[in-house]
């Protein structure tokens, strides 16, 4: 199975999870899906056998509300049985609406925005202190960038020349209240991070081949952390969800579920050819 097929399969799993659990942030799950698939199936030195390996790569989903995509990937890779996800969002479940490090494969809890990058800085710093080979990855939302702590972390990452750190912005340009540029504008985002001393790569964030190249470039970059600004589409993969802020955390109706499933299946089949 190629990774494009995989991404549409994961999107179908997410659809089932959100539809059955009657909760979730499906729009952001779909914008970030290809970034997570690229990281987990291609880039990162991480697997269920390596969860305690000190040399494993580290990942923090800073935009923790996209946890449904992460859960489906972790289940698909065998970090826990897929069956476990039947309890998602149910009373007493550990599979809650944000990452929870009681779950195998999840390093740190997140959900409150603006934490992932500073924590990742600490992980990367520890790697530098130990002369370790692991790399640290975090994915943030673009609305999240209004948090001041993101910029505290950005400052420290370049100060300590953390070239073992790669951060990604899932730049889908929508947040709960509407356009990110209306709520609090971020442009020129690349220049902002460059001025903080980061190596910045712009990439189409729903294009797995382009993402592979961006992560490879990040790995080759020395003396500076890398920020991949991944231009994505919120709700990517389902026609009626794409670029619609309302799908930030809407649960599909039965009719919407059926249509979304058909579209994703068709795209998965096309990717197979």
């Amino acid at each position, binding site marked *: 199975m190629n990774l494009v097929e995989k991404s549409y399969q994961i999107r179908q799993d997410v659809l089932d999870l959100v539809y059955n659990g009657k909760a979730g942030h499906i729009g952001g799950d779909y914008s970030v899906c290809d970034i997570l698939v690229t990281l987990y199936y291609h880039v990162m030195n991480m697997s269920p056998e390596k969860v305690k390996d*000190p040399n494993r790569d580290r990942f923090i989903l800073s935009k923790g509300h996209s946890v449904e995509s992460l859960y489906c990937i972790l289940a698909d890779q065998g970090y826990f049985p897929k069956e476990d996800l039947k309890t998602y969002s149910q009373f007493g479940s550990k599979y809650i609406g944000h990452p929870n490090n009681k779950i195998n494969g999840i390093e740190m809890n997140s959900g409150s925005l603006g*934490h992932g990058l*500073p924590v*990742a800085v600490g*992980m990367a710093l520890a790697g530098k202190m130990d002369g370790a080979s692991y790399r640290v990855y975090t994915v943030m939302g673009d609305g999240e960038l209004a948090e001041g702590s993101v910029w505290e972390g950005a*400052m*420290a990452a370049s100060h300590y020349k953390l070239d073992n750190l790669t951060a990604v912005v899932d730049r889908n340009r929508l947040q709960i209240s509407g356009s990110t540029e209306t709520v609090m504008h971020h442009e020129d985002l690349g220049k902002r991070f460059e001025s903080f001393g980061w190596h910045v790569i712009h990439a189409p964030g729903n294009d797995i081949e382009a993402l592979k190249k961006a992560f490879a470039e990040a790995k080759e970059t020395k003396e500076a952390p890398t920020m991949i600004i991944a231009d994505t589409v919120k709700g990517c993969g389902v026609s009626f969800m794409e670029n619609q802020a309302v799908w930030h955390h809407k649960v599909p109706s039965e009719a919407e579920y059926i249509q979304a499933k058909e579209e994703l299946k068709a795209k998965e089949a096309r990717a197979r050819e």
Partner: protein
Amino acid sequence: MNKIANKQVICDVLMEHAEKEKDLIVLCSDSRGSSSMTPFADHFPEQFVETGIAEQNLVSIAAGLASCGKKPYVASPACFLSTRSMEQVKVDVAYSHTNVKLVGVSGGVSYGALGMTHHSAQDIATIGSIPGMRVYLPSDRHQTRALMEALLSDQEPAYIRTGRNAVEDVYEEGNVPFVMDQATVVTEGTDVTLIACGEMVLAAKQAAEELSREGISARVLDMYCVKPIDEAAVIRAAEETKAIVTIEEHGPIGGLAGMVSQIVTSHHPVKMAAMSLPDAPCIAGKSQEIFDYYGLNAEGIAKKAKELLA
């Protein structure tokens, strides 16, 4: 008069361990001087992390270091550490369960005349209300050393608050009774119990001496472990003495008084009085002037105890 501040003892103990414990890391937010950590930064530059004036980043970076096996000690003024970075403590330290030790220096009204921005009269309330966070306010340099040795051997998050200046010894060198998470009985007594933490323990001890001269037997409990509080010691105090006075360098809400009264009311109600800083910006002045103004001294405590027993 002792010249060694409790915060300096923390630096001394960390330096003694840092030589053989290479995972021990100290982090400061442009606070190496104010937290007495300059000697550590100078002697162990490889084990020292400067974050600049960015307390949120300070705590998150520490949590990231801890998740990769480091043993971070975060030293920053208590006023900023306990409020500016409260969410980082809640999420990255307590909730993610990382072995981060937070050292809040110059706590309470140590910064006296600098005003409310620099007072930390809410740190027991903020940090103590977070599930999984322990809160310690050692009373003197000897107890600070014993506490640090205990904390160095565990893997759980904790917050330690110290004052700014050297304080008189409560205990004698070489005779420092200390059991982790158990209140220390400074003075035995049967009429009234004075439960204090941090710099208020000395005042409580002096109050007990005054009361003794008037024939009143006061027990003094050094509740350096504000959380987890020594519940058994509080219950014994309620059962064995007629009244309890709590004394703390903290506001009246969410501190030692509330924690003690929760135990007392549900186990063995006795008369209580809570002595604290006010629920208002504190008056300006040196620490001792502020304590005196609010009656947080031997005379004030003894007076309160007598009122309760009357």
